[in-house]
């Protein structure tokens, strides 16, 4: 009986701690969702009242005018990154998942290549931008232009694509590969027709996230892509190319109200662009998960 009387006050203290814990978890959630909603809605609410659709069809004049050049420039840069980083990243992922021989202890192989991808993912984006500026723009005399921008952004997003491709390939059931081999397919043919096909949603997700990152980056572009108020030209070097994040970054602290409108317009287009890509990528994931469950 003594035990019970002694433990009683402790129990109420424990009960208090338990309810405090519950309150704290919900408060924590509030501290994430609250500011995040404020962030997204805050940008949208300040941008929408001044929004004109002509922004998409007029060229910028720096702190005023439209953003047609920046929208087109961002899309051009994203297509370039998709081509360069997409092919390199997907092939690197294939190499890491399928072709690199496994280590003796049974763990995944590809030591040096895997390390390079991890290290690349760890570089701060401004450091990549700096290297692009001094080596590509200055030392190689390419100037602020499309090619250095695409190459530096690609270096930045290749790890995302390689990692997501690798994990998508590793989730393909072994039975598929064995079935393909039993039918007499060569390794390359089965990779293209069977393995890559069932890993495709995972790969596409990685590509979409990489595109969202590429479209929303600022630091690596400031000193590689340069700035211009004209539409992108077809030359890879010597001609600066404009992009949306530049106008957010340069116009937010200008004195004129018009500059703030430009800044928020660019931010709104970016939010819509990036969120669309991310939502689509999540829908792809949701779809595949539904499929993979029906397989079981």
């Amino acid at each position, binding site marked *: 009986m003594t035990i019970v009387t002694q433990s009683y006050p402790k129990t109420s203290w424990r009960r208090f701690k338990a309810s405090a814990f519950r309150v704290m978890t919900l408060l924590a*959630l509030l501290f994430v969702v609250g500011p995040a909603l404020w962030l997204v809605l805050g940008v949208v609410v300040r941008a929408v009242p001044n929004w004109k659709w002509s922004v998409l069809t007029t060229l910028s004049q720096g702190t005023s005018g439209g953003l047609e050049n920046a929208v087109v420039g961002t899309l051009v840069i994203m297509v370039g990154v998709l081509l360069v980083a997409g092919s*390199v990243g997907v092939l690197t992922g294939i190499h890491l998942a399928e072709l690199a021989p496994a280590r003796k202890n049974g763990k995944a192989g590809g030591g040096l290549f895997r390390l390079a991808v991890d290290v690349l993912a*760890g570089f701060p984006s401004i*450091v990549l931008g700096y*290297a692009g500026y001094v080596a590509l723009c200055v030392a190689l005399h390419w100037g602020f232009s499309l090619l250095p921008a695409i190459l530096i952004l690609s270096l930045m997003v290749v790890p995302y694509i390689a990692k997501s491709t690798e994990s998508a390939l590793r989730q393909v059931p072994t039975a598929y590969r064995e079935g393909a081999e039993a039918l007499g397919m060569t390794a390359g043919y089965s990779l293209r027709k069977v393995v890559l096909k069932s890993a495709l949603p995972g790969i596409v997700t990685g590509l979409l*996230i990489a595109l969202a990152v590429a479209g929303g980056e600022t630091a690596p572009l400031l000193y590689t892509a340069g700035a211009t108020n004209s539409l992108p030209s077809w030359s890879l070097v010597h001609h600066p190319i404009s992009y949306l994040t530049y106008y957010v970054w340069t116009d937010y602290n200008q004195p004129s109200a018009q500059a703030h409108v430009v800044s928020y317009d660019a931010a709104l287009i970016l939010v819509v662009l990036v969120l669309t890509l991310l939502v689509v990528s999540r829908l792809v994931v949701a779809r595949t998960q539904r499929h993979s469950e029906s397989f079981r």
Partner: protein
Amino acid sequence: MLVRRHEDRAWRISARVASLLPVAGVAFIVIVLALKAWPATTVNGVSFLTSSQWVPGNTYGAVVHTHGVAHPMGSSYGAWPLIAGTLETSVIALVIALPISLGTAFALTERLPRWVAQPITFFVEILAGIPSVIIGLWGVLQLGPFLASHVYPLVANHVPNVPVLRFFRGSTGYGEGLLTSGLILGLMIVPIIASTTRDLFMQVPPLPKEGAEALGMTDAEVARHVTIPWVRSGIIGATVLGLGRALGETIAVAMVSGSILGKLSPNIYGTMTTIAATIVSQLDSAATDGTGFAISTLAEAGLLLAVIAIVVNLAARTIVRHSASHAAPVGRV
């Protein structure tokens, strides 16, 4: 059949060539940084890490040579305020983000019904992809001014004047500074830590938790003695990964830190700068230094940042991989 055998080889060769490109990319960046940083390293010496001066010197005046490296007269660089600023903002971000992420992960896995938790999980994951320039825009034009006029003065006027807490007193500024940068960084790394932790909590099998509950533990005790220890190394890995992101974040911090060079912030609200923010805001003016010494100094700062960020990042990945490949120990407290 011949074509198919060629296809085999085509895949093999192209994948091998492609996977060499990241290796080449890393080599390219490291070599460029090291070559560019070398002149600055020889002139700035060890005091680069401890000095607080950031004086470009007279870029139109006489050129002096130190150790055979040309630099403008009177130039003197010290990165201590940048290093300290980088560490301070990252620590603030971690101190804020870790408990909030753990709480969020608990709320999402244990407390909320599925139909509420699922859209919020989705939202938190999306948050990780919001461009940093937009977070910076919101931070400098909306969050910062709000905190500076409504929250900071409240804290600064009511905190007692004792050793550690003294840092929270004094002038609260206009919302650009150390604490705002730390808060913004915290918001940016919460999605990384929270969504990883949530996934980890989902992997904790229900039986040990139910067993602990059957022994009379409250849900707070189950969380502390069963769930968190079960996935501890994974949480540490995710936290360190978030730290890596906070250390290297550039644009958002450049927008909300106030970008003041050459001095440390006297209190937690003051303007400051970080290594990454300095590189992005100083590269333009550094290009006016005809001797190239300012550019070289920025390379030294960049190299320093890259080394810190990569060590942190690799450590995080090793911890995460380690925790993923080993089964969780049963009943370890």
